[in-house]
């Protein structure tokens, strides 16, 4: 069955190729159908593959061709099919398909329609290859390829300077992470002599015993790559800016799939990470810190998409936190549920933007529920899932990973505190967003408000489908620790169990954590309700009391400005210095040599008087000298 695995990436790629070559001149609006067909095909094959392998998800690989052989370095392009891949494939293809369908409606009037439906299947192709990669290099190749698609799609409306700037920023920030990844990859080859997953995993214990430091360094470097792609502090700055792209892109790439690549990667390398407790600790702390850090910023943003973006950063942080304590299954579980409800929220916000004629500022919305009932209700489902209200999808997964931190003990308590605070804030900003957008009195001008309309079916149906997913997807993880997904991924993450990182919780413990989580979420929602609906205290009062903290949050802790001036400005400064040095010193030296030569030539030129007797004189002088030399020296 794995023999048809190559169809999964191929179908979106074919769609990309067709649209790319013929889209502009011939296909035009039909590109949407072709892209949808390609992604649907991938989805169907993935589901078929999943069903066929439901019982025995043995890792299999399909070698396609040899990439390069040089000395000891030999690398095949191969596809891998195992439990983790299949889970990821399902998430990626299903959300992708929904977004594709939705985009037909959302992008309908855009002149770059064909371009959009060229980039989007390309991204799907790259993402599929990323999760199907069988070795580090292929992973890296498509790691960068999804980054490229992200670049292309963020800068989709290239006439906007801000879009282009955001695209470049995203690419460069990702590149910084990728450099870490690349160095880790090169070190991995240096240490293991191979880039193949299974071979690396097989050698990992021996290497860990021999040079534990090296293993930690490799893990950390790979994690730097994950930080870039999954927007973890301090490389998170690109993701909020990435909202310059069309909203379906934000839903697909910057919420559901690409940004989770980092989580996937760390999970994929679980046999490596479990061998290095230091690396695990770093992952957990970075994740937990990012979760809280981004959630605080999310409180103070007014752009509906930016709130979601910081929320995504925060949720990704939770996943990393789970990874860091060895709860790989919980992380992947949360990844899957997050893909559904965050995809839903983004598409919903897109629907709002579409319906309000390109309004993104929540301060100028309000009272939209009546105008957009489908969008509104699905959005609330997504919001509840994100806040972690039982029994929606987000609840089960978030609860599980919070529980895992507690079980880890030691540092885990701190992590739990960070994670729980993050979920508390999540509930607040999520419902702040919902209340500001859909409820209360509208703050739109009447003329514009009257034109607000519900989106067409091609957009609402994906919303409904995703809402169902957001509501029910959690049940694959029910009962906690023994759900379908746990069994399915059990073998993949066996390393964590062997390393003693998995602790079996008691039923009382599970129920206790669930109760606390629900309580936290409910309190958060209530606070949001009281501030933003009841206005007691009014939002302005809260902001005023927070004072400098509020300023800090609105300005995202001034981190972007810091990067702009210090890093970008510093690089430019050094570049300017070097350019000056090159032009004046290096080239100056070259020209100086030229000047010296021509100066000496000019001096010698004067000796050419043009007078015969001077020349004759010098001949005679020379003869006399030669003879003198002969007489004195030779004889």
């Amino acid at each position, binding site marked *: 069955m794995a023999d048809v695995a190559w169809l999964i990436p191929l179908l979106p790629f074919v769609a990309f190729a067709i649209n790319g070559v013929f889209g502009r001149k011939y296909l035009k609006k039909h590109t949407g159908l072709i892209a949808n067909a390609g992604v649907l095909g991938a989805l169907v094959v993935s589901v078929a593959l999943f069903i066929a392998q439901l019982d025995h998800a043995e890792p299999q690989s399909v070698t396609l061709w040899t990439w390069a052989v040089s000395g000891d370095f030999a690398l095949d392009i191969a596809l891998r099919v195992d439990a983790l891949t299949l889970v990821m494939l399902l998430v990626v293809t299903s959300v992708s398909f929904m977004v594709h369908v939705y985009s037909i409606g959302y992008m309908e009037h855009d002149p770059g329609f064909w371009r959009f439906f060229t980039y989007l299947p390309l991204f799907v192709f790259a993402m599929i290859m990323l999760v199907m990669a069988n070795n580090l290099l292929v992973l890296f190749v498509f790691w960068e390829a999804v980054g490229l698609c992200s670049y292309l799609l963020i800068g989709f409306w290239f006439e906007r300077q801000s879009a282009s700037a955001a695209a470049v920023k995203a690419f460069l920030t990702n590149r910084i992470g990728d450099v870490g990844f690349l160095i880790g990859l090169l070190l991995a080859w240096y240490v293991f002599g191979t880039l193949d997953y299974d071979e690396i995993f097989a050698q990992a214990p021996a290497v860990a015993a021999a040079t534990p430091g090296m293993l930690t360094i490799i893990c950390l470097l790979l994690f730097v790559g994950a930080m870039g792609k999954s927007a973890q502090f301090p490389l998170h700055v690109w993701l909020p800016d990435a909202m310059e792209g069309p909203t379906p892109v934000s839903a697909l790439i910057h919420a559901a799939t690409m940004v989770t690549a980092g989580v996937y990667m760390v999970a994929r390398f679980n046999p490596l990470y479990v061998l290095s407790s230091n690396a695990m600790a770093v992952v957990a702390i970075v994740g937990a810190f990012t979760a809280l850090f981004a959630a605080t910023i999310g409180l103070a943003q007014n752009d509906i998409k930016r709130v979601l973006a910081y929320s995504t950063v925060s949720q990704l942080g939770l996943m990393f936190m789970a990874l860091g304590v060895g709860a790989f299954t919980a992380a992947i579980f949360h990844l899957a549920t997050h893909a559904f409800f965050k995809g839903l929220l983004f598409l919903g916000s897109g629907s709002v933007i579409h319906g309000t004629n390109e309004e993104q500022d929540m301060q100028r919305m309000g009272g939209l529920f009546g105008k957009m009932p489908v969008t509104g209700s699905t959005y609330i489902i997504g919001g509840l899932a994100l806040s972690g209200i039982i029994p929606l999808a987000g609840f089960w997964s978030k609860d599980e990973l919070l529980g895992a931190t507690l079980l880890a003990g030691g540092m885990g308590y701190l992590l739990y505190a960070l994670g729980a605070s993050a979920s508390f804030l999540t509930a607040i900003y999520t419902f702040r967003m919902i209340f500001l957008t859909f409820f209360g009195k509208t703050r739109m001008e009447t003329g514009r408000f009257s034109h607000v309309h519900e989106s067409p079916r091609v957009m609402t149906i994906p919303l409904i489908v995703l809402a169902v997913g957001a509501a029910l997807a959690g049940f694959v993880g029910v009962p906690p620790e023994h759900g379908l997904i746990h069994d399915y991924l059990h073998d993949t993450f066996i390393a964590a169990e062997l390393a003693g990182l998995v602790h079996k919780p008691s039923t009382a413990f599970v129920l206790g954590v669930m109760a606390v989580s629900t309580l936290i979420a409910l309190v958060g929602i209530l606070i949001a309700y009281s501030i933003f609906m009841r206005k007691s205290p009014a939002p302005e009062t809260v902001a005023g009391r927070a004072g400098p903290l509020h300023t800090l949050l609105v300005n995202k802790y001034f981190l972007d400005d810091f990067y702009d001036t210090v890093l970008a400005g510093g690089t430019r400064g050094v570049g300017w210095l070097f350019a000056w040095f090159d032009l004046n010193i290096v080239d100056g030296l070259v020209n100086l040599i030229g000047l010296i030569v021509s100066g000496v030539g000019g001096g*010698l*030129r*004067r*000796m*050419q*008087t*043009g*007078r*015969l*007797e001077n*020349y*004759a*004189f010098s001949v*005679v002088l020379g003869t006399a000298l030669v003879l003198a030399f002969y007489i004195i020296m030779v004889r």
Partner: protein
Amino acid sequence: MIIPALEYYLVLGAALFIIGLLGVLVRRNLLIVFMSIELILLGANVTFVGFAVALDNMLGQAFVIFSLTVAAAEAAVGLAIIVALSRHRDTLNVDEINTLKG
């Protein structure tokens, strides 16, 4: 056998040669410069013949014949150049002929 000794002839040749050389270096009149060149050739001829006799080898004398030929050819061509030059430039002053100036 050669009387007086070969060295005397060589010194005579050298003297003529040097005088001719000085003429070339010192005089400004092109015609006299040419005559000085003839002096140089004459100095060389003396040396040739001196060696030819001292070494019992007629080649030296034969060479003087060639030297004479060259002298004649040089005089003919050189004077023709002088004629052409003086027509062109109205001067025989070497100082004024410095087209080679760099």
